[in-house]
């Protein structure tokens, strides 16, 4: 297990280094300069600004500076927001995004697992068909369409919940719902397939033969085993929620990371784009790492297969 963990850790660090390097060089290739959005500046003033941000140094020097800064958690200064450090911007914006993401994941997992279990137990009944159809719809309707529809019907037409903005708890409900639909649908589909496979297996037959009640078989034997593989889709789910947050936050005007990212793209705020990109990547890689390790602990077959190499 230790060997497996170290192996994963090494991959994680290599991946991070590559992402940081790639982001750095890609940003250098970007069209437009951070000065294009400013008031007209004389060439001298532009020089002073470029010097200040270290943009006149040779590329290797910039690269080394950037990487050492990164190692110390310094993501540079924003070009747009009066030199505010990017780390600070991310810190200010992370709260709403984290809350929404967390709520969407937890709600999605609970609902998805429940729907999946019900569909599998009631296999080939209208409950099964109904939830399968809803799940396919859930993965098919793009999150931004769903978010806009929610906003229009629940917010504007029915006026049950605030249309947008941020502040009280009720402001989080609609964005969470918009983010969670995809999670519920994916987990429900996955759970249903797993449950169906397990319900047909020999040990369930044995449990039934022993005379264990239906509830006991499902809860103690089927559900527990079906939930193990769910761990593996937590990684992709995090990404889906992260991706969704870009549009959902924009639609509901949530002051989160996703909204900031889209905003920065439109204003060529390189350092902020780079910072948020790296932040998302680190988050994603950390989740994948945790999922791998967790899965290795839950299911020993995985780490054995990895270690044999």
């Amino acid at each position: 297990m230790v060997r497996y963990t170290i192996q994963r850790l090494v991959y994680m660090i290599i991946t991070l280094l590559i992402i940081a390097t790639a982001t750095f060089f890609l940003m250098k290739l970007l069209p437009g300069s951070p000065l294009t959005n400013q008031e007209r500046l004389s060439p001298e003033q532009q020089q002073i600004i470029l010097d200040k941000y270290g943009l006149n140094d040779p590329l290797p020097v910039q690269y080394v500076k950037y990487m050492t800064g990164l190692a110390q958690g310094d993501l540079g200064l924003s070009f747009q927001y009066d030199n505010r450090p990017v780390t600070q911007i991310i810190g200010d914006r992370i709260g709403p995004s984290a809350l929404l993401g967390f709520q969407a994941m937890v709600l999605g997992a609970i609902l998805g697992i429940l729907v999946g279990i019900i569909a599998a137990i009631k296999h080939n009944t209208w409950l099964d068909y109904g939830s399968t159809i809803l799940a396919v719809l859930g993965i098919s309707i793009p999150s931004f369409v769903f978010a806009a529809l929610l906003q229009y019907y629940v917010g504007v037409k029915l006026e049950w919940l605030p249309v947008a903005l941020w502040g009280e708890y009720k402001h989080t409900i609609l964005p969470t719902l918009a983010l969670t639909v995809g999670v519920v649908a994916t987990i429900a589909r996955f759970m249903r397939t797993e449950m169906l496979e397990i319900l047909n297996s020999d040990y369930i037959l044995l449990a039934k033969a022993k005379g264990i009640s239906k509830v006991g078989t499902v809860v103690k034997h089927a559900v527990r085993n079906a939930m193990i593989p769910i761990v593996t889709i937590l990684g992709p789910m995090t990404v889906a929620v992260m991706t969704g947050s870009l549009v959902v936050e924009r639609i509901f005007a949530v002051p989160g990371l996703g909204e900031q990212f889209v905003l920065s793209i439109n204003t060529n705020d390189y350092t902020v784009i780079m910072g948020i990109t790296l932040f998302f990547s680190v988050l994603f890689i950390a989740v994948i790492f945790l999922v791998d390790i967790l899965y290795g602990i839950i299911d020993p077959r995985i780490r054995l297969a990895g270690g044999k190499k």
Partner: protein
Amino acid sequence: METNKSKIDQLSPDLFQQRKAGEDEAEKIERPSLNFWQDAWIRLRKSKGAIVGIIITAIIMFFAIFGPSMNDHKFSDQNIRHAKLPPKIEALSGISWLPFDGKDADGFDVYESRQVEVNYWFGTDDLGRDLWTRTWSGTRISLYIGILAAIIDFIIGISYGGISAYYGGRVDDVMQRIIEILVGIPNLIVVILFILIFEPGIFSITMAMVITGWTGMARIVRGQVLQLKNQEFVLASRTLGASSNRLIFKHLLPNVMGPVIITTMFTVPAAIYTEAFLSFIGLGIAPPRASLGSLVNDGYRSIQSFPYMMFVPSVVISLIILSFNLMADGLRDALDPKMRK
């Protein structure tokens, strides 16, 4: 007994025909021999979802091909006097729950008051461009991107996965490490960075998706080939002196086609979604061209007063993704031998 025998004697022999041995069909238990694809097709036809998916796709493709030329408006024709007209289809205007009666949100017939003679089937946007034409030419772009991404994904994924698994050893090791690192990078981030650098457009969107999109396919192909390459039929062919090329193309690839096709089918909706997503955050197709995503984005801006502008492209894009998902689900059940009942 005696009477029976006389009865038989009365029958003349030419009433009977001799049955030859070996022609006895009754003993035979057999169904017509079907190859993999015929078998899969029979199972696919049984899946209601897949059939619905095929029909929806066919209808959408029909409109994507012929829709833009069904009326006289071009996708870029602007007519400010006809701006923001609600949808009106003469044949459907009697049905009250359908929004095709040419009335705005307050039930006010805009066509009458503004004296517009032409009917805009899906209405017009804020520059007076015909949304019917724009929706279907947007569908063209979305479908084109989806299918192109799937094809490139297919080619790169198969070659990479196939080579990695077939040659094994150090080649496989290095190639797998590369994939492992690529998989760790969030897709959307790469796509967004890529589009920021190159001009937003159909080509860069497709390329951006292809750069990261093939890893899943490569992994699936590798897994399949690893399973297959040690099987007896491959050994037999190798013993007979078959070349690597022959082994790969004649024996291994045809056998991995099932999972590959399923993965390709799932790539199409994913690519269409990514494009729509990018267009929605303003990184997609540049105006005056429109994709479904950018139409949804345009419509979203005026959703309060003109909801139809967003609903129509939203419905179309959801239907496209839905129908491809349904087809892929059906195909997965049909091509998976474990599903054979």
